């Protein structure tokens, strides 16, 4: 498993191919619809975490209001469907509203960075949560919006859990490829430059605010996509989805997995969704367990699971290389 991160390109390719095959064949080797649905949840929450990771990991901007953006695209989908729009129209409108909301978020919050950015995004997220609660004529207030039916593109009905899983998988893979291209592009390098040394980027001729703004839009797009998948998965959206705890949860996915890595948010999303859905069936106080795991991660691998695993693997292999094995010593002595 570790070779995925540290091995040569051939090993990495093989490991990724095995992972891909495992994801494609998942509905055939997991038992029951429940676990296929858990797989779908992991996939769309991973897209959400990848979106937040653009800001947290690559731009150094920690947002505590992303659940508001996630929720607003989910609400937009539900509301459009309630108005009688088709699924295509509802999804397009939700994407536009999601990205436009992120643009407004960015204009207001990019006036600051660090703790200021966190507080402004927190406040904006809470405003959206408050609107979801109080703007009853649109959002249904505490009762939320129920969505009837799921799309069936080319007769491929998303009401079937396996079909929903495969659509989520396609969206997830597209998101991963997009983020991988984004991060490796000159723009990605510039974004990381603004994270590390904004003043230096300024002196190199970059408009730091604009780079961060574009990064916000990309993050908003991925967040909106995951919000749409969420509302089609649950067929329901309520203010609870926009609450601060939801923002903290996705931030936890990013931080626990490893911010600023491609694999980190995916691992973090897997961890949090499994604890939330599977482990909560066995342990009543699953929040306590999640907190304990997070504390353990912070103490043992403060950089996150993925970079931490790379570091620990490096330590182990270096130690092995430094200590001559008994067989090697024997070989040396043998004439």
């Amino acid at each position, binding site marked *: 498993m570790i070779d995925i991160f540290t091995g040569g390109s051939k090993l990495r390719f093989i490991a990724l191919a095995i992972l891909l095959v495992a994801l494609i064949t998942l509905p055939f080797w997991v038992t029951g619809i429940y676990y296929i649905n858990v797989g779908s949840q992991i996939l769309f929450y991973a897209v959400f975490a990848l979106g937040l990771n653009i800001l947290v990991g690559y731009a150094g901007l920690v947002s505590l209001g992303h659940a508001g953006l996630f929720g607003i695209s989910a609400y937009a989908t539900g509301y459009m469907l309630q108005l009688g729009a088709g699924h295509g129209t509802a999804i397009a409108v939700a994407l536009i509203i999601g990205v436009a909301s992120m643009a407004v978020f960015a204009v207001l919050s990019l006036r600051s960075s660090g703790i200021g950015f966190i507080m402004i995004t927190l406040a904006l997220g809470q405003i959206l949560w408050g609107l979801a609660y109080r703007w009853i004529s649109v959002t249904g207030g505490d009762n939320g919006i129920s969505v009837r039916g799921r799309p069936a593109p080319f007769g491929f009905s998303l009401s079937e859990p396996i079909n929903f899983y495969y659509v989520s998988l396609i969206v997830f893979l597209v998101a991963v490829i997009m983020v991988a291209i984004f991060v490796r592009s000159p723009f990605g390098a510039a974004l990381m430059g603004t994270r590390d040394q904004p003043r230096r980027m300024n002196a*190199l*001729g970059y408009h730091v605010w604009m780079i961060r703004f574009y990064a916000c839009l990309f993050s908003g797009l991925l967040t909106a996509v995951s919000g749409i998948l969420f509302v089609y998965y649950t067929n329901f959206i309520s203010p609870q989805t926009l609450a601060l705890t939801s923002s903290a949860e996705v931030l936890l996915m990013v931080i626990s997995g490893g911010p600023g890595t491609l694999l980190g948010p995916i691992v973090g999303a897997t961890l949090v969704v499994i604890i939330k859905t599977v482990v909560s069936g066995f342990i009543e106080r699953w929040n306590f367990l999640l907190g304990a795991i997070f504390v353990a991660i912070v103490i043992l691998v403060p950089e996150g699971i993925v970079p931490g695993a790379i570091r620990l693997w490096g330590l182990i292999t270096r130690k092995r290389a430094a200590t001559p094995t008994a067989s090697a010593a024997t070989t040396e002595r043998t004439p």
Partner: protein
Amino acid sequence: MATSALRLENVDAFYGDSHVLQNVSFELGEARMLGLLGRNGAGKSTCMNVGMGLLAARRGAVTVFGEDVTKLSPELIAARGVALVPQGRRIFRSLTVRENLLVAGRKPGSGSKHAPWTMDTVFAMFPRLKERASQMAAHLSGGEQQMLAIGRALMGNPRVLLMDEPSEGLAPQIVAEVMATIRKLKESGLSIVLVEQNPNLVFDVADDIVILNTGGVAVVSTPAALRQDDALLRLHLGVF
């Protein structure tokens, strides 16, 4: 003197309430090298920051090839062909060597008279960077980091290069390598301001010398004249 590449004219600059630069004026000629000397806290780096637009001059004017850039932001000054190799290198430690250079890439301006700098030409000048192109910049030695900082500035295809203590913290052999590179850059026709604390390094390469003392210009001279005036150097630099 040739055409003015960079001119600071009666510049006053402040850090908060601290009056750091007082009525500072000097001029860098095109394709020349100006050595900016002074003790710690004399205002050398502040002059560089003002020239780059990182610190706004409260009074006075800054011009680049005759154009007033006093009120411009750093990215606009960079677009006019000014690049800074900052003190302490300030490379992007979490990016690879190649990414550090890629980030700084900029096409030469219309006024540029030099062959454009590309990744290949920077690697040709610093072969060691090419060997380490895929390595994280944080893992480079001090000398290599300095080469990367210079290479990064060159990738912006500047007409004016501001170098803030490029020899700081480097071993003597590496300092010699860096100075040889600076000499080559000067020969290529680049206009350079070289900030240093060690006057001997500057005297070997600079055409003109400005010595700052407590935020003001104390001496404007040439290396040849200053080499003959130990008393003046002792007075303002206190190193002889």
